[in-house]
């Protein structure tokens, strides 16, 4: 039996997950669960989604071997190129699925939260394509450091609203999106951007992203003569790109590594808690107040993590090391110079870990999920590197 199961009605992965939402939202979550299960088992829905993934998002994404960097580090390094998807990250996989589902449920409007802006851009894109109204909440701090994506969302016809409370980053954008949804639940679908939140989101978003892992496993077997990689690595904010690629390898011998930012290490430094509708590892104080994360990358600047990652950590199936902002900056420039690929700052976390751990992985095959491209980060990096 696979380690990654379909959760029962209680939405649990081991002790984690659940549906800790205001009473107002319970019927909506239950309706969503029913609608998703029905759609996922409906060949026509799957066909429609696959068609969009192929003809609009550009799937399958390719597998690239990094010969230069691999030689330098003494490993064989492959990248799963989610950066080449339409809109520039893995987020489009989930959003196309949820937007189709929203239409199927008769919703006219979607709301979304976004950190780096990639999920917001993907949501605005899908909304434009499918004729839905779209409102995106984004931390005021993130609107500044990801200005380009704010403009992209507005170009695509979405309304972007700054979240001004708390740390004014991703956590606060989620709060605002949930508040909006409580008030508009009858007409609106909450298009949540990661494998987090109340059931069925962690499960549903994983299913929409498992295409990453399914493709990668086949592609790896092709180039490796039927073998699987030794190590599979991805960055973890809420954990959607990581769960997507892990789902292809969880039942192989591969080590699974989810890399967190040092300033947002929910699995690494958190303890179980309940926020944003789920029970999961959470950075919090003795009183249960949620702590503010601090990361150079807006997409990973989050004190929680998806519940299935907490479960994979607890049972020892996946490891969750963290890297510092300085290592991330190194990883960012390293891939650019050695391979001609500018990664998103989020994925630069995975690179930073690979570089650090390479001495212990000599000769091994490492697969990394390159979840997004770095164009959105170039302005921020001009500041960071300019000041160096």
């Amino acid at each position, binding site marked *: 039996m696979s380690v990654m199961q379909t959760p029962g009605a*209680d939405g649990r992965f081991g002790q984690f997950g*659940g*549906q*800790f*939402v*205001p*009473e*107002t*939202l*319970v*019927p*909506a979550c239950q309706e969503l669960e029913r609608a998703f299960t029905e759609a996922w088992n409906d060949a026509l829905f799957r066909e429609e989604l696959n068609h969009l993934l192929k003809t609009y998002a550009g799937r399958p994404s390719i597998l690239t071997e990094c010969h230069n960097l691999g030689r330098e580090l003494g490993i064989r390094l492959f990248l799963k190129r989610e950066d080449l998807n339409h809109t520039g990250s893995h987020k489009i996989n989930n959003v196309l699925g949820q937007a189709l589902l929203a239409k199927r449920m008769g919703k006219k409007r979607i709301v979304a939260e976004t950190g780096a802006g990639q999920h917001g851009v993907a949501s605005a894109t899908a909304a434009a394509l499918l004729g839905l109204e779209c409102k995106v909440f984004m931390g005021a701090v993130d609107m500044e450091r990801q200005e380009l994506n704010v403009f992209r969302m507005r170009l695509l016809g979405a309304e972007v609203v700054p979240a001004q*409370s*708390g740390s004014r980053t991703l*956590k606060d954008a989620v*709060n605002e999106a*949930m*508040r909006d949804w*409580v*008030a*508009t*639940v*009858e007409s609106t679908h909450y298009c949540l951007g990661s494998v987090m939140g109340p059931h069925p989101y962690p499960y549903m978003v994983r299913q929409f992203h498992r295409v990453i892992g399914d493709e990668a496993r086949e592609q790896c077997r092709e180039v490796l003569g039927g073998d699987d990689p030794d190590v599979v690595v991805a960055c973890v904010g809420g954990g959607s790109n990581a769960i997507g690629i892990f789902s292809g390898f969880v039942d192989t011998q591969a080590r699974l590594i989810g890399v967190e930012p040092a300033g947002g290490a929910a699995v690494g430094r958190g303890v*179980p*808690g*309940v*926020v*944003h*509708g789920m*029970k999961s590892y*959470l950075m*919090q104080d*003795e*009183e*249960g*107040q*949620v702590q503010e994360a601090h990361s150079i990358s807006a997409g990973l600047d989050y004190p929680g993590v998806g519940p299935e990652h907490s479960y994979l950590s607890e049972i020892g199936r996946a490891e969750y090391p963290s890297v510092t902002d300085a290592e991330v900056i190194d990883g960012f420039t390293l891939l650019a110079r050695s391979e001609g690929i500018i990664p998103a700052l989020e994925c630069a976390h995975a690179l930073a870990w690979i570089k650090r751990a390479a001495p212990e992985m000599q000769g091994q095959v490492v697969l990394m999920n390159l979840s997004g491209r770095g164009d959105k980060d170039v302005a921020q990096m001009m500041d960071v590197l300019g000041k160096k």
Partner: protein
Amino acid sequence: MPMHLETHLRAQRSAGKKLLVPYVTGGLLNWKEAIRAAAACGADAIEVGIPFSDPVMDGPVIQEASLRALKDGATPFGIIQEISTLDIDIPIAVMLYYNTVFRAGHERFATSLVKNGVSAAIIPDLPLEEAGEWCRDADAAGVETIMLAAPTAPDSRLPLVVERARGFVYAVGLLGITGERDSLASTATVLAGRLKKITDKPVLIGVGVSNAEQAYEACKVADGVIQGASVVRRLMESGPDAVGEYIAEVRAAIDTH
């Protein structure tokens, strides 16, 4: 043992009164004075908000109040302990988010409530499906868990909510978060009517009951109202005397029923 909230509210209702429950954010400047003023001006029970970093059910006013209280160093156990020094003769409930309870541990938390004279708890992010363990532990310790009923609940769900509710049934007045509105949403009395049909537990409308006139409207169907943002805003803008005056005004309006 603290006063029994449901018994107290039923007695007030039997005496022909509509029920008035003001909400005050614990740890906010002058919060205890505001509670004493409200008690002196006709409140039937008090709801004390335990500030949380991420209050998803709350609008701008209560968010701001929570933030101020946290900045001033408010902590859940600090507030609960101070409640024991209030010296008022009406029951007190706390309103808090589940992580506060989960982090402390159910038993430890419930015991501390009882020890400090708190009768009941409202946990807006702990719906029926997730509430089982807490409700068992709360029942065992003698804490009444007030359940929320929402306008979105189908007819099949309301009886389950009502059955599980202790103290009173909290009818959420509208689709949305706490905060003042220009008029009472039609959902408020519709939901209260649905609830009154299936229970004789006290039914109080909260969220979006914003002034004396709306409280009067709500009490045409409901047994009473919770006054949240309208109270907290007055406390932040003008201080505890303004809270007392406001509660007296609402009291007078609902007493005309």
